């Protein structure tokens, strides 16, 4: 004698089918997805309109001048200027920042994560490094002016590319340290145990296992830091980058950088005559700066992929 009859069973089935096939019309979820979509669209629109504006503005500079826009020097006529001194300055600063901030930043991060005891002093140091990452760039400019242009004049020769690279390296150092520390902290404990378990010293474990495993994360931080350093103008104004005539480019003389040119040229009025105005020159310089950052990013991404492949042991 069945307790559940066939008709009861089929009724239950129909009910279940209806319940699970009903359209999901939960109003708050729909509202949320729409809001999020608007946020994304707004961000993308801003980005693309910015890019479109820069590109269209920059076209005259490149189509009229061609390579001479890159290789020419700064002048007082918008249709004759070139950005070579700025390109040289920005590229040198980029290399300098990499050479100074990356070893220092990774070193500090390794010390703080692997070597330093987790005590009150260590926590105080870390909190302050985090705070330093939020200090306005112009403050670092003041610091650079006093230390690297003033006190270290025998080394930097005053307001030169060297002083600029040092200043910007100090500016991005907290970012490099923090991202590297986070990457190092994410290294599984088991990997360290494995190294120590076969008699490796702390240094050997750090060198052979911790740093290689953390490298992709460290590189991401480095690329972000470098992009920030290349884009800064305020600290360069403080340490005396010039915007006028610069007859020659060198590591020990006066210098300028692309953000300085953009800043300076954007403020000048477009003359009525000529095909290229100052706004076109500024946009051209902006496009070159974006390309420069992109080049450094691509190198960073290639390196990161290389280290990520190593992480799975191939």
């Amino acid at each position: 004698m069945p307790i559940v009859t066939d008709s009861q069973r089929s009724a239950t089935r129909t009910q279940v089918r209806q319940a699970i096939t009903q359209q999901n019309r939960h109003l708050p979820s729909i509202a949320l997805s729409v809001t999020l979509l608007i946020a994304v669209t707004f961000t993308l629109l801003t980005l693309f309109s910015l890019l479109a504006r820069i590109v269209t503005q920059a076209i005259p500079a490149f189509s009229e001048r061609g390579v001479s826009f890159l290789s020419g020097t700064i002048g007082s006529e918008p249709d004759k200027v070139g950005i070579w001194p700025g390109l040289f300055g920005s590229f040198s600063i980029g290399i300098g920042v990499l050479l100074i901030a990356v070893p220092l930043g990774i070193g500090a991060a390794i010390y703080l994560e692997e070597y330093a005891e987790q005590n009150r002093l260590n926590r105080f140091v870390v909190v302050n490094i985090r705070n330093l990452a939020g200090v306005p760039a112009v403050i670092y400019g003041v610091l650079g002016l006093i230390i690297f242009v003033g006190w270290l004049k025998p080394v930097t020769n005053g307001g030169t590319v060297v002083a600029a690279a040092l200043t910007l390296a100090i500016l991005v150092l907290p970012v490099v340290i923090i991202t590297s520390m986070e990457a190092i902290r994410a290294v599984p404990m088991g990997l360290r145990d494995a190294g120590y378990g076969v008699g490796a010293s702390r240094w050997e474990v750090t060198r052979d296992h911790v740093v290689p495993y953390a490298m992709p994360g460290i590189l991401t931080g480095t690329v972000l830091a470098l992009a920030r350093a290349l884009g800064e103008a305020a600290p360069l104004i403080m340490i005396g980058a010039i915007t006028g005539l610069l007859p020659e480019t060198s590591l020990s003389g006066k210098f300028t950088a692309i953000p300085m040119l953009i800043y300076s040229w954007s403020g000048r009025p477009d003359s009525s005559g000529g095909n290229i105005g100052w706004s076109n020159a500024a946009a051209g310089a902006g496009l070159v700066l974006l390309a420069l950052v992109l080049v450094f990013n691509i190198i960073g991404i290639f390196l990161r992929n290389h280290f990520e492949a190593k992480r799975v042991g191939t």
Partner: protein
Amino acid sequence: MSTSDSPQESVALGGGADVSTSLAQEQQMKSDSMDLPIFAVRDLSVKYGEFRAVRDVTLDISEHEITAFIGPSGCGKTTVLRCLNRMNDFIDSAKVEGRIDYHGVDLYHEDVNPNEVRRRIGMVFQKPNPFPKSIFDNVAYGPRLTGGMSKADLNDLVEKSLRRAALWDEVKDRLKASALGLSGGQQQRLCIARCIAVEPDVILMDEPCSALDPIATARIEDLMQEIKKDYTIIIVTHNMQQAARVSDRTAFFTTEMNTESDRRTGVLVEYDTTNKMFSVPSDERTEAYVTGRFG
């Protein structure tokens, strides 16, 4: 704690040389008596900050035997195990009291080089933790640290170690492949091979089978029997049947409520031959645990 990593530093501080001579002499005198245990643990207590994890552990461990540490969670068996090769050095808050003699040498003496200790007292961990490198490089890592080995010798050593760990036949055709592509059981045997490759004296195993299925577990247990004639093995396990199957001696730990705080501290209840521990334990807590009435 970073200073304890560099023996040179303690010598450079002065007086180190004298102490090491006396330490060596002490060792010489002690090793003259033949029945010296490989480990002599005396009144070992470990604190993590204010928290006392385990207290007053005293036991001797004999060579070429498998000793099992059993007990409920939090009883301090892993903590004691990690003291035996100074793995607790890396936990900032850990403080070790009492004395552990290894071949008659005080392991926590300032002249002892902890890296050398860990080379001689290898460790296999709960979760298989191969390096993200090739199978070959995993096994070769330890020997390469000491260096001075020809390529042919290294190849031989890697093969020998993988054979001993009963893994060679499964991986001989893909030594250059990533170790992370192996199954859990294979990874754990690779970790044992990596440990064997540095030719240790003792192998510490911290719940080596807890992440493995029964077949992989059986292989590891067979392997332990196979290699125990060359090594002294100490294994921490949650699994009483495993302790009964593989070990010669068993130490049972449990937790005791502290009178001053409501945190629990691990204590050693009983330590004897495995046979006796599982048939006629002398402490009723041991009996309750091994018969499954508690824990």
